[in-house]
């Protein structure tokens, strides 16, 4: 295992070192003392694993295509922008605008996530991204969602506390959102239909969540004890005729 001490390193120098190590054939790199360095893992295309100790800066894993990033602490905003494949595991909370336009791969977050998570995420057939967060989410969860799967668990939410914010799935026109707990329809976008997760859904959830639990040391059976709501878009191509009159 290759170790880079990131203390006080400028983001460009840190990311150069990471790329240099990968080029030399390293497949597992640990970054120690990271704090705020932007763009870690961006555009990397291979099967490497990068372990990040500390709080990585914004735009983690943007355009990433393959690697696994394991963040041992909290993370900030804009993770997984237009990510294509690979996985980001975060052992703390994460910020706003996660998975913007993400088109494949996985974000597994243990804690809370911020606003606009999964905004305009997309997926087609085999290429389907997943974001799973163990805590709560802010407003605009799944805004303009076009494909892929968002799962929100609310593991530490007490009775009566909201799991997710307002404007849930606003503008959603593809993909699916699963919320472990109750969803108030008045906080959902107009395009969203809310239903109970059925057998088929639960099978799918168990599969996705088993991997999530393995990554973060949680118990899958505990998580599956509670009911899930499923949200999908109920209008088909609502603006399909916008330019066709």
């Amino acid at each position, binding site marked *: 295992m290759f170790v880079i001490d990131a203390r006080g390193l400028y*983001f460009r120098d840190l990311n150069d070192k990471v790329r240099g190590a990968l080029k030399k054939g390293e497949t597992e790199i640990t970054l120690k003392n990271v*704090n*705020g360095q*932007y763009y870690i893992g961006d555009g990397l295309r291979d099967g490497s694993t990068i372990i990040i100790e*500390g*709080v990585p*800066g*914004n735009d983690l894993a943007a355009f990433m295509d393959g690697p696994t990033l394991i963040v041992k602490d*909290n993370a*900030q*905003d804009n993770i997984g922008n237009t990510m294509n494949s690979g996985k980001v595991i975060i052992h703390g*909370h994460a*910020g*706003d605008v996660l998975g913007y336009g993400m088109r494949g791969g996985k974000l597994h977050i243990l804690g*809370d996530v*911020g*606003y606009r998570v999964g905004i305009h995420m997309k997926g087609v057939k085999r290429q389907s991204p997943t974001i799973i967060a163990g805590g709560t989410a*802010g*407003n*605009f969860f799944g805004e303009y969602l076009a494909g892929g799967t968002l799962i929100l668990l609310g593991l530490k939410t007490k009775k009566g506390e909201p799991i997710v*914010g307002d404007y849930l799935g606003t503008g959603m026109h593809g993909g699916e959102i699963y919320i472990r707990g109750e969803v108030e329809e*008045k906080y959902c976008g107009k395009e969203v239909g809310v239903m109970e997760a059925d057998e088929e859904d639960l099978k799918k959830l168990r599969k996705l969540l088993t991997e999530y639990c393995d990554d973060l040391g949680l118990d899958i059976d505990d998580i599956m004890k509670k009911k899930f709501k499923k949200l999908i878009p109920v209008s088909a191509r609502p603006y399909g005729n916008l330019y066709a009159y």
Partner: protein
Amino acid sequence: MNHNYQKDIAGCGLTGLIHKKKKRVSGEAIVKSLCLMNDRGNGLGAGYAAYGIYPDFKDFYAIHIMYDDPSIRHTVEEFLKSNFHVEKTEEIPTSPVKHIAIAPLLVRYFATPLKERLVGGIEEEDFVVNTVMKINSEMEGVYIFSSGKNMGTFKGVGNPAEIAEFFRINEYEGYIWTAHTRFPTNTPGWWGGAHPFTLLDWSIVHNGEISSYGINKRYLEMYGYKLTLLTDTEVVTYLLDLLVRKHGLDVDVACKALTSPFWKDIDDMEKDEREAVTALRLTYGSALLNGPFSLLFGHSNGLVGINDRIKLRPLVAATKGDFVYMASEESAIRAICASPDRVWAPRAGEPVIVNLEV
């Protein structure tokens, strides 16, 4: 001065800290925190505000003045002396910094209004506000950067490290600090346009843009405020002065006026709250702040952080013992507080209000 500036991508970074029991800490910490977010600015403005830095002159208004044109200094000082007892005058200590080749003349005055000038029952603080407005709007080439008691603002054109070195920020000790690195987008990068924006003991640092500037400006002008600093953030400072000091609103109520709930959420409230919030929105419609922003404001009794109502700019808060930290990025907090007791992202429009306990 040419204030024509082309629009560029937005950034800006802010950070602040408070010790609730008034333990004074050196500026070193806030500088370190701000420097971590150096890339959020572009070197066209940085600044610091600190409370508790002038204990020997704590009963005097600390008036920090920037002279673009030193030849006007004499006129300004004569004006000040005819209205204030000036206890002490000194140039603000600075150190030479390589990349700050040209700096305005910076002088501070510890002063208190002359009793005989407070005619017609005018409040002392109103007299100070009127003086600031008069100098900033009527005298060419001179701007008052700050005018509060036992606090001061230090700002200019440069990056966070340069401005800190220039003003020798490490040599001050305060119990509330705010700081800002600027990436000017809609308005010019000049010394007066750097944050914090200060009036009396209000100081504001801000990331984003106040799209309601025009409405807010016209509203404030009706109450005699003059907006001279060519930047949207200025309105927030004066709105707080108006709502809290003049109209006597509590800080949390003032925040509800500035970032009031949406009508659909007001409709959902219980009757009493609905009526109160409706009245507040109707009364202070012109004080509503629109557009993307996160901002911190310091005052003599505390520190407040707040976001716009749909959270279009970042803000993270943390606590450690009697310290509370707020910043644009968590890493800026962790740079000076490695393991906080609690870290969280405040919700849109919901202020984090921290008051001094002593």
